[in-house]
């Protein structure tokens, strides 16, 4: 997993609530057996017309936001399916950080495991960042994960909370599986106890 420490980028505004994983990446694109390449179909229905041409009104089709690495959006982002294709598609497209008032649980876990930082902020802070984001290329946002700080385009600072273990893994680009395998003895012990108590 890639490390995440600091990020400065234009922020793309997507002022929608309950953006579901089918919207982020529709099921018809889940037939891949790879993790990469899904960025081309990110937000497919919102981004493209039926003939495949770009919908001009969609944020990522506007020149100012083509290279945005931060997404600012509404509450309950990522609700629905457990498909990790949703964060894969975001990451493949270039999104490294999503800021919203709340996130769905499974999407939350999946994102951190792919090096994407999700920042949960009070609605009024998100509203402010959303307004900043709408200013486009003139308004970059800086994120410092170590300091847990967001700097807006006008210099204002917003502090954010983050799960300390997830932060540690992101800062160091750590692979969970490797960490867990160091606890194999404890897993063996658990299995032994459970087999004795519940032999079925």
């Amino acid at each position, binding site marked *: 997993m890639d490390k995440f420490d600091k990020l400065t980028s234009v922020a793309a505004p997507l002022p929608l609530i309950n953006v579901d994983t089918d919207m982020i990446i529709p099921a018809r694109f*889940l037939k891949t057996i790879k993790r990469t390449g899904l960025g081309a179909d990110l937000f497919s229905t919102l981004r493209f017309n039926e003939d495949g041409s770009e919908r001009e009104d969609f944020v990522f089709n506007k020149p100012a936001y083509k290279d945005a690495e931060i997404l600012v959006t509404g509450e309950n982002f990522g609700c629905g*399916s457990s498909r*990790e294709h949703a964060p894969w598609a975001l990451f493949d497209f270039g999104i490294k950080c999503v800021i919203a008032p709340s996130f769905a649980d499974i999407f939350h876990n999946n994102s951190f495991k792919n090096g994407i930082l999700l920042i949960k902020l009070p609605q009024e802070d998100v509203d402010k960042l959303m307004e900043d984001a709408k200013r486009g290329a003139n308004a970059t946002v800086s994120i410092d994960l170590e300091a847990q700080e967001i700097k807006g385009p006008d210099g204002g600072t917003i502090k954010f909370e983050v799960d300390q273990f997830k932060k540690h893994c992101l800062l160091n680009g750590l692979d969970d599986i490797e960490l867990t395998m160091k606890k194999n003895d404890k897993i063996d012990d658990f299995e032994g106890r459970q087999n004795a108590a519940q032999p079925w």
Partner: protein
Amino acid sequence: MSEAKTLYDKLWDSHIVDEQDDGTCLIYIDRHLVHEVTSPQAFEGMRNEGRKVRRPDLTLAVADHNVPTTDRSLGIEDEESRIQIEALEKNCADFGIELYSMDDIRQGICHVVGPEQGFTLPGTTLVCGDSHTATHGAFGSMSFGIGTSEVEHCLATQTLLLRKCRNMRVTVNGDLPLGITAKDLILAVIGKIGTAGGTGAAIEFAGDAFNSLTMEGRMTVCNMTIEAGARVGLFAPDEKTFEYLKGRPKSPKAGAWEMAVEYWKTLKTDDGAVFDEEVVMEASEIKPQVTWGTSPEDVTSIDGQVPNPADEPDVNRRNKMERSLEYMGLEAGTPMKDIKINTTFIGSCTNSRIEDLRAAAAVAEGRKVADGVRALVVPGSGLIKELAEKEGLDKIFIEAGFEWREAGCSMCLAMNADKLAPGERAASTSNRNFEGRQGPGGRTHLVNPAMAAAAAIAGHLTDVRDLD
């Protein structure tokens, strides 16, 4: 005297392998269901690192999302779907995992297959790379959906790194009114608490209305817990649970069975245990439910109307409602019963079990699907299909003009050939009415199986209780 615990507390505590200082726990996983869509990248990761599956004996695989529901002897026409299913077969062979292949009578939707085989048991932890894994909570199993990274973590270590959820209880008091099903109960709950109402929570279902449900009904309720934002939904196991599981192929055998049941009987919330949040509803107030929008929380009763966004004070919600109505092609104030449909889908991990098919068949019997309506019945597993055919349900459906299909996820998420065309409108027994869920531009109204059958016959959404 130990502190009073909830059912969820007991399941959590009994699976802790290790606890970190920050509260993150390493939780042992007793059962792992694998399907073709969310597993290939996990197996690829295992191969790249030269890792083995720690407990293939606790892992069961089945292809469901992509499989055709038409004649299987013809193979899979769609190349990408075929490659994904072939990848699952190869991965299971290479890593020693039991697989129910497409032509196995036990094949079906993984959340139907698990309980049917007795793979799902009370007191266990069960995961799958699918959000509807919450289904298995009907048995008092701490079960939840995971992403592909966690699938890989579980394959390699038989554990997951997790934070404990908060405890939430939803109680529906009173007897279920005639014609009101598990689907109506859970849709009404989602309508009340919202699609994010259960975020971060494990929900235990309680009260007479829930307790009176069959195991099939309980699975429908737990299945849609995720549509309320909660990863885990739970029922305390009882005699119905034990009766359902007894004699299933993977259930504990004689000797161990009695021991298991003794343990399972302890799996209930202690008197005096405190929930972080309680929601209480009355069954008598719940009518047949139907969704009007593009989130499961956009729900009303069949005698209701399409709501007016102008009545919504919150600007973000108002915008979402306007967007939903535009997508759905609906005008505010339209009576739900006036909405014409051209497709009915009876199936999915929510409502494809034998009880669901019986309920739909009871409505279809002696009636005809309306002109211009396409109606699909997709059983949850090959075994359910076989049982339904023994009961003659297939003939009832076919005579009424329904299509009788092979088992799979089908039009619930439209990964195979079964999908809505742009602008088509379905009464569907599935779980999500998201934009494009049943096909790009397709419009979904979620209902219970009898209501779906009634809509197919009437040609519009209708109250099954009013059918001639």
